[in-house]
């Protein structure tokens, strides 16, 4: 690390001074500095804004530059510290994949901790929320006809085979959910049912991203896949528990749950778990602007996914009409 390298503490890193120690939390990690390291960090902290070189900072705080460098090197490995002059560099697809994985895990926390899961699994969700959950999942999966098609039609040459295959393999997955819903409602009612604005928001955001940035779209879609397409036995087990609890609390959902499970299996049978990793390994190095654009799509996708759950939770609690049939001239 050169003396003119300009260290920058990430703005999402949280620093807690606990008198004898300093804790720095960043994404899912936390590092603790004690004793001399904590004292040195206290002096360094106000200068970690990416505007001053390492040598200048060392001089300002009257500390030997090698000592400052050693601490900063350690912090860099945690990800909580970067260097402003990194901005001109490109990153490899593999590095992007690691970055994507790290942030997705962090951004998906709000999705995994959403209060709707608690309501669904404890039997406190209303009938409208339970059936609404099934309908909205159907609308979201049926949305493949829109966003996956737009993605294929607007694909960059190198992404086209991936996006074409993606659409062809998944466009009819909505039918799996529709089979479940048909156990409760006529086919025509299911086909004409209206999605919530929050579900529409998720599908539209996918479509808009697909039209303008093939790689960013796929990176965003990968975040959604991470919540569905798991071969991890622990995660798979918790999904099974979720379905069991739904069957127990809402006996009328039996065939809906069958359709959920059938869809999860259909997704898993496609073996898509490693597609994104392979795709990242094959793309040319990405500029900072490309990484920024793709990662903003991914973050916004996570926010739309949380919004999708907010919609089911809040809308159906307030407006319990189910199913959401279309307007007519006399219905309003």
């Amino acid at each position, binding site marked *: 690390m050169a003396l003119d390298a300009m260290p920058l503490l990430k*703005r999402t890193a949280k620093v807690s001074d606990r008198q004898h120690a300093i804790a720095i939390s960043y994404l899912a990690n936390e590092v603790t500095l004690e004793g001399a390291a904590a004292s040195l960090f206290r002096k360094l902290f106000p200068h970690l804004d990416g505007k001053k070189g390492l040598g200048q900072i060392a001089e300002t705080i009257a500390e030997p530059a090698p000592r400052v460098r050693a601490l900063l090197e350690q912090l860099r490995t945690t990800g909580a510290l970067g260097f402003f002059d990194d901005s001109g560099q490109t*990153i490899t697809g593999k590095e992007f994949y690691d970055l994507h994985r790290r942030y997705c895990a962090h951004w998906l926390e709000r999705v995994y901790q959403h209060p709707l899961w608690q309501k669904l699994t404890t039997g406190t969700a209303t009938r409208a929320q339970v059936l609404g959950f099934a309908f909205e999942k159907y609308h979201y999966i049926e949305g493949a006809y829109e966003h996956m098609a737009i993605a294929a039609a607007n694909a960059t040459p190198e992404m086209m085979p991936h996006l074409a295959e993606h659409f062809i393999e998944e466009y009819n997955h909505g039918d799996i959910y529709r089979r479940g819903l048909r156990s409760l*409602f006529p086919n025509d009612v299911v086909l004409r049912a*209206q999605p919530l604005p929050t579900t529409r928001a998720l599908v*539209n*955001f996918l479509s808009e991203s697909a039209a303008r940035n093939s790689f960013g779209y796929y990176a965003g879609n990968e975040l959604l896949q991470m919540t569905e397409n798991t071969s991890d036995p622990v995660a798979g087990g918790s999904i099974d528990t979720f379905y069991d609890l739904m069957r127990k609390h809402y006996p009328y959902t039996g065939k809906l749950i069958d359709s959920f499970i059938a869809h999860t299996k259909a997704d898993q049978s496609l073996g898509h778990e490693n597609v994104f990793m392979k795709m990242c390994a094959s793309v040319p190095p990405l500029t900072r602007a490309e990484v920024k654009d793709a990662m903003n799509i991914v973050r916004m996708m996570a926010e739309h996914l949380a919004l999708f759950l*907010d919609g089911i939770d809040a*809308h159906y609690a307030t407006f319990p*009409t189910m199913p959401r049939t279309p307007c007519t001239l006399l219905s309003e």
Partner: protein
Amino acid sequence: MAMDPLHDQYGLVRIYGTSRAADGNVTLRLHDRAVELGADEFTSYTRLAEWLPTGRPQTELEAELGMTRDRVERFVAMLEKSGVVYSTERIPARLTGEEFYRDYFAKFLPSWLGEAFSHPFWERMMSGKGSARLYTGWLFELYHYTRNANRHMPLSCAHTRSKPIKALRAKHYAEEWNHYHYFSKSLKALGFTEEDVRSSVPLPMTLALSNFMRQAAREDVLAYSICSAVLEGTTTDRGTYSPYYEKAAELYGIPRGAVTPIFAHLDLDVQYQHSDLFLEICRAVDTMSAERASLVLDYGHQLVEHIWMWTENIERYYEDDANPMPRRAFDPIWD
């Protein structure tokens, strides 16, 4: 699954509010009337409403209600007379654009706006349980919503084949495209810099509003125009919205400079008479089918639901002090 005749013959009318009296009677508020049902009648109505969109046989409904077939049919006929269900036979096959506006949209709009603004956020803000932060967050999202007009208004011209309608839509765009400056000015009066405002990122539901408008613009110019009309309906009557801004300013110490530009914006909308635009557009439509009318109404009502959910998203995000304001884009160096 074959449907029984009742499934096809009747539809449910939207209920905009329900209240129960001490004697158990329930009042249902429709767009044009209030209907009072006895406690047992209401229970039967609820069961009917749940059964109607299903494919379950009528015998199941009769068993649930404890009524014979004739009695169920008389009960449904009574509900039709009172206005809470409608006979699908009465839906006109075709109508003119002006009839659509006058006989349907204009009559539904007040109830739709009531639903859009029924979110508890408004009561919270007006009762002093809100905060300056919520008010400011709302302004940021209004800034983005207004700025995002540039993502959908021109698109509605591009996808329209009717010359008179595209001319009206283009004029509307020319008059509105830069109105986000009003909200930018308000935010600057609250201490934010031009850069803070310009580089901020909207909430997902704010973005969703403009994405939905883009979808409407691509599908049908009347679908787009009804959404635009619902949104204009929110600013038509200054008397309705001024108290919110006045009261919030007073309750949360919002400086005058942050409120004045909003009134200037509302006044400009009234001056342009944008609330009449949808009528002008409808007049350019000689005839439309019931199916198209249904699609257009669907877009209008979904826009209403977007506004409610937009409010929910704003409240949930900005009430949490840990969330950044303004929202910043992710940056691989800074984040």
